[in-house]
């Protein structure tokens, strides 16, 4: 029996009066990749951003319900603590342009004013860059600014930056949508390898990507959770007609 790290209970989200998520109930299993897929506007980005409370800065967004991380309600916790426990990687690579590669990886500590010994810092940076499979590419240029990196490398740097905080969950919001096929393959491979260290939730509009790298898949449609199952089961024998239609390309 795998343990449930995150439980979403009766979760509703609204922008002004428009409801974008309807009674979502979902349990995420530890050390798995869970893909959230669905057509544009189905609420998948809203859902993933609700998990690390990125909606706190959107004035017209309103959330109802509970999200429990290890049985503790995220919405009762300090948002700063929530975001340190739950990392996020965005659609577009967003390394800090004013910082070196080294400082980018360690940014979570540096910006929060957490003091580390030089040895700890070096270890965290090396470990994070190794996990994100780019240590060998950048180990000689650690103190250069990241602007010469390719888009795919920048995205892996962002993954390293998130991993450096040793998060319990890593949220990936369409992490490959701004990348070319080769870089995409690289990131996908990386995600599959990272399962041992961290639980990942991946938003994607790409069915093939969900099939390739996730263990579990959630299908959202018009703000409703239509189906949640093991990926290979859902891809081959979907229970709901809407899932089947989506998978066979009838819409979306």
């Amino acid at each position, binding site marked *: 029996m795998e343990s449930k790290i995150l439980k979403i209970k009766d979760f509703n989200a609204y922008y002004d009066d428009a409801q974008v998520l309807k009674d979502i109930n979902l349990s995420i299993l530890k050390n798995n990749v869970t893909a959230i897929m669905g057509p544009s506007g189905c609420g998948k980005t809203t859902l993933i951003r609700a998990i690390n409370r990125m909606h706190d800065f959107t004035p017209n967004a309103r959330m109802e319900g509970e999200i429990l991380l290890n049985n503790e309600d995220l919405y009762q916790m300090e948002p700063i603590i929530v975001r340190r426990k739950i990392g996020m990687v*965005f659609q577009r690579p967003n390394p800090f*342009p004013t910082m070196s590669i080294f400082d980018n990886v360690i940014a*979570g500590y540096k910006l929060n004013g957490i003091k580390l010994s030089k040895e700890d810092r070096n270890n965290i940076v090396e470990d994070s860059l190794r996990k994100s499979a780019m240590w060998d590419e950048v180990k000689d240029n650690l103190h250069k600014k990241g602007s010469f990196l390719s888009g795919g490398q920048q995205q892996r740097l962002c993954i390293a930056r998130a991993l450096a905080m040793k998060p319990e969950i890593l949220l990936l919001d369409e992490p490959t949508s701004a990348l070319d096929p080769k870089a995409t393959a690289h990131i996908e491979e990386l995600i599959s390898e990272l399962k041992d260290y961290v639980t990942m939730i991946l938003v994607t509009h790409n069915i093939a990507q969900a099939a390739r790298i996730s263990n579990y898949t959630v299908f959202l449609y018009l703000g409703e959770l239509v189906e949640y199952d093991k990926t290979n089961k859902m891809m081959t024998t979907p229970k709901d007609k809407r899932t089947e239609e989506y998978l066979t390309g009838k819409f979306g």
Partner: protein
Amino acid sequence: MADKLENIKSGNMGRGNLSFRIFKDRLFKIFVFVISGLATIPLLLILFYIAKMGIASINWEFFINLPRPPGEVGGGIANALVGTLILILTSSLIAIPPAIALGVFMSENKTKSFSKWIGSGVEILQGIPSIVIGIIAYVWVVRPMGGFSALSGSVALAIMMIPFIAKSTEETLKMIPLHLKEASMALGVPYYKTILKVVMPAGLSGIVTGVIIAIARVAGETAPLLFTAFGNHFMSYSIFKPMNSLPLLIFNYAGSPYDEWHSLAWGASFVLVVMVLLLNIISKILSKRWKVKF
């Protein structure tokens, strides 16, 4: 239909053939070039004339001596140079912190109506004639303090700088992509640290450029200093006493009947123009060198 397509391919496009169109295109380009050349002529003439009239008085003595009484040859503008420096320094100290804070507030709260009110307030402040700002500083600072002072002049200049720096800070920070802020927030960095350590460093070049250009603007202001810093024939280092500045010296000496003072005023004009020009060039270099690519 097919005929028309053939015509277009061979350059026959309804009214006027292709060669005439190309001719019109060239004519327009020449027109733009000539007009822009004409527009820069006054600028070059001014620079040339000031240099011609002013450069004769420029030597080392000119920078280290005080003005001499009328009738005596020589003398310099040391007190005005020091005064301009002190006035700029003091007014910068007064203006920069609140102006940058204002800029940050306006860019961070774009949608709030309160911030829109402040935005229009800043724009109106920018449009107030400098002489009026001088009078305001007179009422606020000179009268309560009981006399003209460099401090009151600095307050007047600071009031002129604030809207400018606030606007340029706001414009700079607005250009910084939201995803950068999100990257910081997603690492659990508190909001104020995100602004101070991520957003502002990314906009540093724009903010510094705005400050330098604001300084260049007020360096040449005369009107707000007339009833505040007032001017002083002697050297003064105290911000609580009247102080001279380059534009005040030019204003006072150019209007005097003495030739020696006229040449001092020309020399001071030249120094002032060079100073403003240098500040503009420095701001250009900095904004290029510190530019952050996203």
